[in-house]
């Protein structure tokens, strides 16, 4: 069930997008945040062999089955989270980066993030004025069960506030901002710990950037069934 081979012809010089037929799992071990259960991770491997050549490329990633929902509560105005259908009380830590000279390493990340887990936190918020964190950061958040709230690079530096007044309309090159945002999403999107993308710190990005981010990050219609976890077998996709 969890091993599949497909055939595909690709024209010379072409770049194609391909979707595998979906793989079925019966009651897989779910990934849970720190304190709610184990951080079950499956190793997904994709490889391509070319006729007359052999193995051409391969890729692998640790993948966690989890469903994260978040919404603003009407009664309190606060943001609530559910993981795998269960409400979770968020205990979060603010994060800028591991080292101001960017001497980043797996060892530093492992130590820093395990420390957060040992403090009984279950979320890290990556502030907009710092980094889009690195895959090693997310790897250890996957391992130790820290949900990640990742902000894009909009702060009080780019909203017309401050003394002297900052540039009011975000960074000068909006196309570059979106190029970086899209590339960052592709870099990080497969991590189980990645919970929420946020436009910026304590504010909304300039309208064109905000609209573009919201559009690019909206849920694909295929996954928009609000009660999919309660659907019956008759609703098989």
């Amino acid at each position, binding site marked *: 069930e969890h091993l599949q081979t497909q055939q595909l012809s690709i024209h010379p010089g072409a770049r194609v997008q391909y979707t595998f037929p979906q*793989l079925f799992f019966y009651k897989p071990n779910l990934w849970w945040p720190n304190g709610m259960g184990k951080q079950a991770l499956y190793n997904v491997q994709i490889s391509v*062999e*070319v006729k007359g050549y052999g193995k*051409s490329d391969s890729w692998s990633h640790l993948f966690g089955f989890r469903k994260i929902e978040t919404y603003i509560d009407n009664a309190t105005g606060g943001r609530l989270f559910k993981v795998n259908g269960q409400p979770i009380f968020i205990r979060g830590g603010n994060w800028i980066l591991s080292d101001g000279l960017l001497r980043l390493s797996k060892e530093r990340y492992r130590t820093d993030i395990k420390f957060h887990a040992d403090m009984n936190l279950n979320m890290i918020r990556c502030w907009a*004025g710092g980094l889009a964190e690195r895959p090693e950061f997310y790897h250890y958040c996957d391992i130790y069960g820290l949900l990640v709230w990742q902000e894009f690079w909009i702060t009080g530096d780019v909203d017309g506030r401050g003394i002297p007044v900052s540039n009011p309309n975000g960074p000068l090159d909006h196309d570059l901002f979106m190029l970086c945002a899209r590339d960052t999403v592709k870099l990080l999107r497969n991590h189980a710990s990645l919970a929420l993308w946020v436009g910026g710190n304590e504010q909304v990005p300039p309208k064109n950037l905000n609209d573009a981010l919201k559009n690019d990050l909206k849920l694909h219609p295929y996954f928009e069934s609000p009660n999919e976890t309660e659907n019956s077998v008759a609703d098989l996709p």
Partner: protein
Amino acid sequence: MAEIGKTKLDSGWLAARSTEVQLTGTQLTTTHPPTKSTAPWMEAAVPGTVLATLVKNKVVPNPFYGLENEAIVDIADSGREFYTFWFFTTFQCKLSEKQHLDLNFRAINYAGELYLNGHRKVLPKGMFRRHSLDVTDILHPDGQNLLVVLIYPPDHPGRIPPEGGQGGDHEIGKDVAAQYVEGWDWMAPIRDRNTGIWDEVSIYVTGPVKIIDPHLVSSFFDNYRRVYLHATTEFENRSSWVAECSLNIQVTTELEGDVCLV
């Protein structure tokens, strides 16, 4: 034939201030490669920043001790060229006829240009983007390759007001770069604004077809009893012939010890 996959370039890097190097990128990667023992070249911190390299070599004090940051010249006073640095390394790679090699930078700050065996390539602006360059055609046939990268600081490094404050004069926000580097209420200004090769550098060998940015998504039904994994990816055929591909996806989990379930 080189093995398919990634090799990190995370050691053996040298660095030098651009204004102190009289050679061109072409010369540095052909006739006049630098050596560690030759001034102004020094061991570099890659991944890391220019300031990390200067601290590593004790050219400047560690800015995170006491008030040592005050002893380091700020880019607003020195000018951007003071923190514009060359980074040099070598790597071995010998490909077979149908193989390809990418040179990957997972992030630099803020822009750059590189020379590989005398050939120039541009690394465009932006702190949070990957750069992937197909360098197959410019590798040395003997397998020994010389690489040098010139890294430029952000376009708008800004100036720190005497009283400090949130984000200095906010100029850094005009670029797509980390903004804490002009100082904040919790952080002293970073003198080089984090200029450098700040994330992983690697070479990556593939055959004629390359896998690009797979995307994994799961969907849940029947109270998490019925679950589906959806995988989409891009493939690029770099050959001049139609590639008949066999695509494989496999999911395993470690049950205990060395026992895996496929």
